[in-house]
């Protein structure tokens, strides 16, 4: 297991360690900086300004990312620093009124507050939970209760794919990507899938595409930072599908609630760009162009 991977890179060279020590020696002690929060008045003014600039950001006929926030099981509160910003983890399986979203939200709450610590001595859990973060019989029981409550089923198998053609073949679907340069990932037995893709349309879009077939339980979540930083609106593609677009500083989210599945796409860039994937800023127009790259009607 993991122990077998130890030392495969050998020892740290002395020159590397020496450079680390040199960098540390060059650091200057400094007074502790206290982070300041904006005054409430300033905060309200800022929110209103963002809302006005966003135009449709406060529309009530769609669910923004804030409505999709779930408990973050791994947000550790430190005694020595202020707590991490709350509510930065969202579920991706549906809008809040869907059983798929509610089930994942309840599962995250269970993992955060009730799941027992992993016990290395405990017997392995049933193989039917192999595709989920189930590490104890108690967690298996809790998950069973959640999926039973929401009438969902567990995934039972997964198959990798490395190309657009393989994906279409596994799904038995007609093509739904446009200008796709690369896509790879895995497909579940019911046609749900996760893929890492690259598409080119003016600029190079790097993204993670998720399709969640209704009726199945999925525990996929996404850290989106502060949901208040997003500009959000509904957009209808030229093929007539309404999608929710969320434009953030370093990532964007596209969501489409389809008859048989829910699609959530995580674009790895935003208004400030992303150092690793999409260094150039993404604009509203770019995000709408991105939405046109998918024929959602083929995904059901």
């Amino acid at each position, binding site marked *: *297991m*993991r122990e*077998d*991977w*130890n*030392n*495969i*890179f*050998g*020892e*740290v*060279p002395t*020159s*590397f*360690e020496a*450079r*680390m*020590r*040199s*960098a*540390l020696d*060059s*650091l200057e002690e400094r007074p502790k*900086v206290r*982070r300041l929060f904006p005054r409430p008045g300033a905060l309200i003014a800022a929110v209103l300004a963002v809302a006005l600039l966003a135009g449709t950001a406060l529309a009530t006929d769609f669910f923004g990312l804030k409505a999709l926030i779930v408990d973050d*099981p*791994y*947000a*550790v*509160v*430190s005694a*020595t*620093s202020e*707590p*991490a*910003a709350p509510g930065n983890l969202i579920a*991706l399986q549906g809008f809040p009124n869907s059983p798929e979203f509610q089930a994942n939200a309840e599962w995250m709450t269970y993992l955060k507050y009730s799941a027992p610590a992993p016990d290395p001595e405990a017997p392995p859990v049933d193989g039917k939970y192999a595709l989920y*973060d189930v590490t104890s019989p108690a967690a298996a029981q809790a998950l069973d209760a959640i999926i039973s409550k929401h009438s969902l089923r567990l995934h039972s198998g*997964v198959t*990798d794919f*490395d190309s657009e053609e393989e994906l279409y073949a596994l799904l038995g679907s007609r093509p739904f990507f446009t200008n796709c340069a690369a896509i*790879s*990932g*895995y497909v579940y037995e019911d046609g749900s899938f*996760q893929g*890492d893709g690259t598409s080119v349309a003016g600029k190079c879009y790097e993204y*993670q595409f*998720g399709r969640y077939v209704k009726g199945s339980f*999925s525990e*996929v*979540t*996404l*850290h989106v930072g502060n949901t208040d930083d997003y500009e959000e609106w509904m957009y209808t593609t030229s093929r007539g599908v309404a999608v929710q677009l969320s434009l953030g500083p*370093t*990532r964007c989210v596209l969501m489409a609630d389809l008859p048989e599945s829910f699609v959530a796409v*995580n674009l*790895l860039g935003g208004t400030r760009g*992303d*150092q*690793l994937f999409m260094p150039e800023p993404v604009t509203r127009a770019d995000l709408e162009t991105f939405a046109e790259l998918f024929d959602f009607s083929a995904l059901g």
Partner: protein
Amino acid sequence: MTRDEFAVQIMDMKKTLYHVACGILRSEADREDAVQECILKAWEKQDSLKNDAAFRSWVTRILINECYDICRRSSRIVVLDELPETAAPEQLDNRDLRDAIQKLEDIYRLPIILFYVEGFSIRECSRILQIPEGTVKSRLHAGRAKLRTMLGEEVPV
């Protein structure tokens, strides 16, 4: 965090930082540049660390950014198969596995190093790499499959 406390935590991570740098950069000199910049930036920006418990993940993420900056600055998008043998030390316990990992594509190599070599959890890998947990799992799955192919099923997973 005082400078001494910071230094202790950083030095405790030296193996992790070296392994991650090896996962992206082939030149020993570049790795040293990257770790130096990483340490300076982490010290400068430590106020942006909201959770001390996440220090290890946070510093690792900074290092990854520095490594990619170096790749970008020198216009060397690393295609590992085309590069000469790494300058890493020779006293390796499992040279075949290391070499196979180095031959993996970027998207598989870093999750493998972070999860198997460094022991980060799926969620920590997700945060460090800024990709969904499902994607981390799929990359680990695909990365293992590729390693098996390269090593003839002798992958300890």
